[in-house]
């Protein structure tokens, strides 16, 4: 049982991800833009943040991830990336972007569950 905030501008991705994570017994809170997402994280202090790259937004996912880290929010961040790998921005975790892992879109439910459980496990061990 963990509290997870998902921030993505695609409501269907939010719906699908929530469905998957709910079915594993997690509580999911969603936001469709970076501002709401930031507020949600501040208000709810979740155990995990899932963040889309959101290239269309002026303050994209990378920016938001930085903002969380600057606000001393150390919750693990899982990033949904859409084109990053295919266009060669194969940055390593924590190198350029302060996130803990990536999930390439389209999201495979089983992979998502696997990565989420892994990050939550790491958080517990800390």
């Amino acid at each position, binding site marked *: 049982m963990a509290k997870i905030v998902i921030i993505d501008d695609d409501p269907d991705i939010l719906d699908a991800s929530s*469905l998957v994570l709910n079915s594993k017994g997690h509580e999911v809170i969603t936001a469709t833009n970076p501002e709401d997402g930031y507020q949600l994280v501040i208000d709810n202090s979740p155990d995990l943040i899932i963040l889309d790259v959101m290239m269309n937004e002026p303050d994209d996912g990378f920016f938001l991830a930085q903002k969380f880290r600057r606000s001393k929010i150390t919750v693990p961040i899982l990033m949904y990336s859409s*084109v990053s790998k295919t266009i060669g921005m194969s940055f390593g975790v924590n190198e350029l972007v302060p996130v803990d892992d990536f999930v390439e879109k389209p999201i495979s439910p089983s992979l998502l569950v696997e990565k989420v459980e892994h990050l939550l496990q790491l958080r517990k061990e800390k």
Partner: protein
Amino acid sequence: MVSLVPSWAIYNEEFWGAIKRRNSWFIKLRYGAVLMLFVFIVSSEYLLGIKFTNTQLVALSLINCIILVYNGILQWVRIYLKCDPFKFNPLHFSLVQMLLDLTALMLVVYFTGGIETPLFMLFVFHMIIGSLILPGTVIYTIAFSVVFVFYGIVFGEYHNLISHHAVTGLLQTPLYNNFKFSVAYSTIFGFVILMSVVLANKIANQLYRMEQELVESLEQLKAAEVEKQKYVMGVVHEIKTPLAALHSYLDLILQGFLGSVNEKVLNKLNRARTRSAEAIQLTNDVLSVSKLRLLDEIKKEEIKVRDILSSVIQKQRAIIERKKIKLHFKDNRKVKAKILGDRFLLEIAFSNLISNAFKYIDDEGVVEIILDEKGNGIQLEVCDNGIGIPEKDLEKIFNDFYRASNIRSKGYEGTGMGLSIIKHVIERHGGTVEVQSPARLASENKPGTSFLVFLPLES
């Protein structure tokens, strides 16, 4: 320092390159001229029955030596020149060369009889070269000076103001003291010199203008291509977003997150998933290609091709085992040289190339991957005994979205972008890709395909 850069010279790099090439060409040519003058001095007595006086012999030999010496110095100075329009640059260097040459030629002309020597025609050649590289005013000044100095020599000799050095044996009767001859020849000479300069200068001007227009159009084309690729990437990304959502929903259902679904529906959903995966693969491929075309420069990392190949093969283990493919990977190189290239791009290219071999092959097929040395580079051969490529498709398979007729009819899935990506990546590395089908491993009903990739060690 006077800037000698002509007003029409805008494209600096190309312009300076041309000037530098010409300078080095002049220096080589001048050695030839020295040799010719030497042969002329030595052999003309035997070949043409010409007899030089001692003064002429000494003067001509001395001039030849001086030319040889200044050419040596010029050759040495040339190396240290910088293409700065406001300092002593290759253009000033050309001017210096031209002045030295004209002086030497003027002296040779004087010591071989002034108006009587055919050598004064060589001035025309100098003037044309000068017009091609020097700005109008400079070359006009030079042309007028040449004509006036020449007139000075001709009429100085006519009036016995300076001594005449006749070439004995060349003419039956002396002509330097013939007024009509001197006037006629020197007038025409002056006219030819000035006209060559005017015409050559105009032609050079027009040529450079056309070149400029070409360069401009080329740049516009490049800019348009960049815009196009950005647009394509934008559109494809927009298409990928809903596709990704669709795909995630299908996975959600298929992986049982919404409870069980009856088998008939499940089959169709699986089919839908396959097709949407295909569409996503296509968007990824298009994005990779667009990105490649937007990249002006590729990375230059030191790469061990063998390592990339091993890792690519490792990632394909599943299909190799499933299809029981007999894979032979050989590295026949004596020296395992590294190449300079972009690891990410080469990985994409090799992965496409090798997965094609595994894909378009029957179970228990044979695939050979061979690395070898070839010229100043390495050659990678990926050869299989798979379904091959029909002859009529061979020249089109590297086109975007092109899929050979036999794979379309047999229902293999694919986007038709793989080979286009491979070709693009390899060419970006200065290499080439060739295809052969039927291939070396061909047998009955299994023509097979062989891809030969050449990558230079230094691209």
